[in-house]
């Protein structure tokens, strides 16, 4: 048992050179709403920087837009507005981009093809991207095949699936959930990317093996300097793994900062709510929730601050204008009018009924919005 070395925590503050950046990313999904066309405001003006060799966590509930953000960063979906920058420049086209940025999906039971062996899963990206001359084709010689095999073995060893030769011959159904997710990570590593986007990589796995996988990600960063985006709904695991946490609510980043600081001194009322609701065996008294209810309907998102209908501190201004992100401590910013106006929660003049919103509002729209994915 070791305390996490100080360098690891400090690296976040120094903010290594940004590798991947989201600049004002916005995604609106068109949907049919009754007879009319409507728009789901899934992600709104998100700016996020992934520093070189850092682990950034995006934390949010279902429907907060965290997966949409990850998919935009992977260029699987096209943003409505905003840009993705790689090394400060406009990101290159799909295949060249994929060589640098790879995505690992949530469900290892559906992200691997059941009819193909582990070797096939890992060899494909090596061949397609021609990693280390491993391009395979009708003319491939025996030497080529050999180097392909050794690359596959190397990948499996890097994700601790040993003996690698045995695992390479297996099929997905012969592997446990944790082993499958390791294969999925190995597949992403095949092209030697610099950035790994992990969308809920452990939420489908058994509790006892989740930490092993998180430690694998931490090790990849530590040993190989991989830059990682960790998307999760579990703020405790984000605190464990990441240098920086960005909290999303209803499509917007509402707070971001060094991981321990965001969880120890949460600034935004929503982050406070999230932390008070999280399971915590150290808690001695039942928590009191400030801001009950559910995420809003994103077809008609609330005006101003999207959290204001639930916020216990909501003021007049919160319903009118979107709060700017204000730095509350070094590298720690919060998008809340309390901080923008330099008020403490006690000084706020909440509107009557503030924070009393619940998800029991009548109307068919109270149901889960089209964007709310499964967790």
């Amino acid at each position, binding site marked *: *048992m070791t305390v*996490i070395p100080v360098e690891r925590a400090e690296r976040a503050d120094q903010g290594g050179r940004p590798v991947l950046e989201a600049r004002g990313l916005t995604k609106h999904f068109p949907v049919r709403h009754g007879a009319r066309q409507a728009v789901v405001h899934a992600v709104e003006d998100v700016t996020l920087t992934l520093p070189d060799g850092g682990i950034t966590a995006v934390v949010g*509930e279902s429907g907060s837009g965290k997966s949409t953000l990850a998919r935009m960063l992977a260029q699987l979906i096209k943003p409505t507005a905003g840009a993705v920058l790689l090394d400060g420049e406009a990101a290159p086209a799909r295949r060249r981009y994929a060589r640098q940025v790879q995505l690992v999906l949530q469900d290892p039971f559906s992200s691997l093809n059941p009819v193909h062996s582990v070797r096939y899963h890992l060899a494909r990206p090596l061949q397609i991207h021609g990693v280390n001359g491993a391009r395979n084709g009708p003319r491939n010689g025996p030497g080529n095949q050999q180097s392909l095999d050794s690359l596959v073995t190397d990948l499996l060893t890097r994700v601790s699936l040993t003996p690698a030769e045995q695992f390479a011959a297996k099929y997905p159904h012969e592997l446990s959930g944790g082993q499958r997710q390791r294969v999925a990570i190995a597949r992403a590593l095949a092209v030697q990317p610099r950035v790994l986007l992990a969308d809920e990589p452990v939420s489908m796995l058994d509790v006892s093996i989740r930490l092993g996988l998180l430690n694998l990600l931490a090790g990849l960063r530590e040993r190989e300097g991989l830059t990682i985006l960790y998307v999760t*709904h579990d703020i405790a*695991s984000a605190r464990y793994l990441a240098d920086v946490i960005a909290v999303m609510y209803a499509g917007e980043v509402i707070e971001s900062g060094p991981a321990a600081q965001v*969880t120890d001194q949460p600034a935004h009322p929503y982050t406070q709510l999230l932390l008070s609701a999280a*399971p915590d*065996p*150290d808690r*001695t008294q039942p928590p009191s929730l400030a801001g009950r209810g559910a995420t809003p309907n994103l077809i008609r998102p609330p005006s101003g601050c999207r959290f204001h209908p639930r916020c216990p501190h909501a003021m007049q201004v919160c319903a009118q204008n979107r709060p700017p992100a204000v730095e509350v401590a070094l590298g720690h910013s919060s998008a809340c009018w309390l901080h923008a106006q330099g008020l403490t929660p006690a000084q706020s003049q909440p509107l009557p009924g503030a924070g009393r919103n619940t998800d029991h509002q009548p109307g068919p729209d109270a149901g889960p919005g089209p964007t709310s994915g499964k967790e």
Partner: protein
Amino acid sequence: MSAQAVMGADDILIDVTGLCVDYGLGDGAVHAVVDAELTLRRGEVLGLAGESGSGKSTLAYAITRLLRPPGVITAGQARFGSSVNLLTAGQRQLRGLRWNEIAVVLQSSMNALNPVLSIGTQFSDVLRAHRPEMTRATRRAKSGELLEMVGIPADRLGNFPHELSGGMRQRVMIATALALDPSVVILDEPTTALDVVTQREILEELMALRDRLGFAVLFISHDLSLLVEIADSIAVMYAGRLVERAGANAIFRAPRHPYSLGLLSSFPSLHGPRRVMEGIPGSPPDLRNAPAGCSFHPRCGFAFDRCRHDPPPLLDLDAGTRAVSCWLQDGTAMVPAELARAVPAGPAVAAGQPGSADPAPIGGQP
């Protein structure tokens, strides 16, 4: 914890001893539950923790006789109260028991609601089946009452399931389970698919209802950190066997089984310095091919020779307040310090910095 203070034979609602459940027959049978022992007392919240495949849901299905083929109960006893033998009860007797005395909220019960019937109709169905004497108007009134009880306005009785959010559907399921005022409610992963805030709200409501109505809860969950918060006592299952049973606080502060210890150190904390934690190496066994001896030994850092050959019995510890199935605790072996912590006195860990009392970090390298 109050439930444990008043002990007496009358208080025991469900008593399970030596229960074994197989899937399939003969040599190919998978032993899903082996020698399970459980006692649920009046008003108690008993947490049943375990990973997928540990047999926790199978155990619940067996107790309620909802087990479907190829599941077979091969041994053991399960009693309800002092008179009813749950395992031999006939269909008529079970019919009188289910929902009236033992209600079940199944896993992913959000999808258990019939999508083409309104909420009100589904409430009415339950009441009509079990309380045939009720008039339509009484049923309607009672349904509204039940819905209000879980914090949903009665005018939503006319809604269909798709018009409700996930949290509300789960509340409806809990309300239907409570429709006939049962003495036992079995909840199988009731909040797993929900967001944390919604999960917390539902737990709050559930605990408030428990205080008001006095039913006992068997709460099945993979989330041990959640169970520590809400349960009075906790039973931990691994590969079909009960490995440890103790008070919630005792198990959290002073686990006696290496698996409980490992499970507890699999949940990163929200407080204190960030530490590298190890979790549990390896993965849960395939029950078709379970390891010999103690089924946890391949993943256990403390395993010794005996663990590889003989399955450990469930041993009573600490004057019968807890039970552990581990050879380390049979009195002959040296118990590692991590598994021999003193149980803190008092029901709550209370004042001061929780956790700081114990400098030994949880889940150290064995």
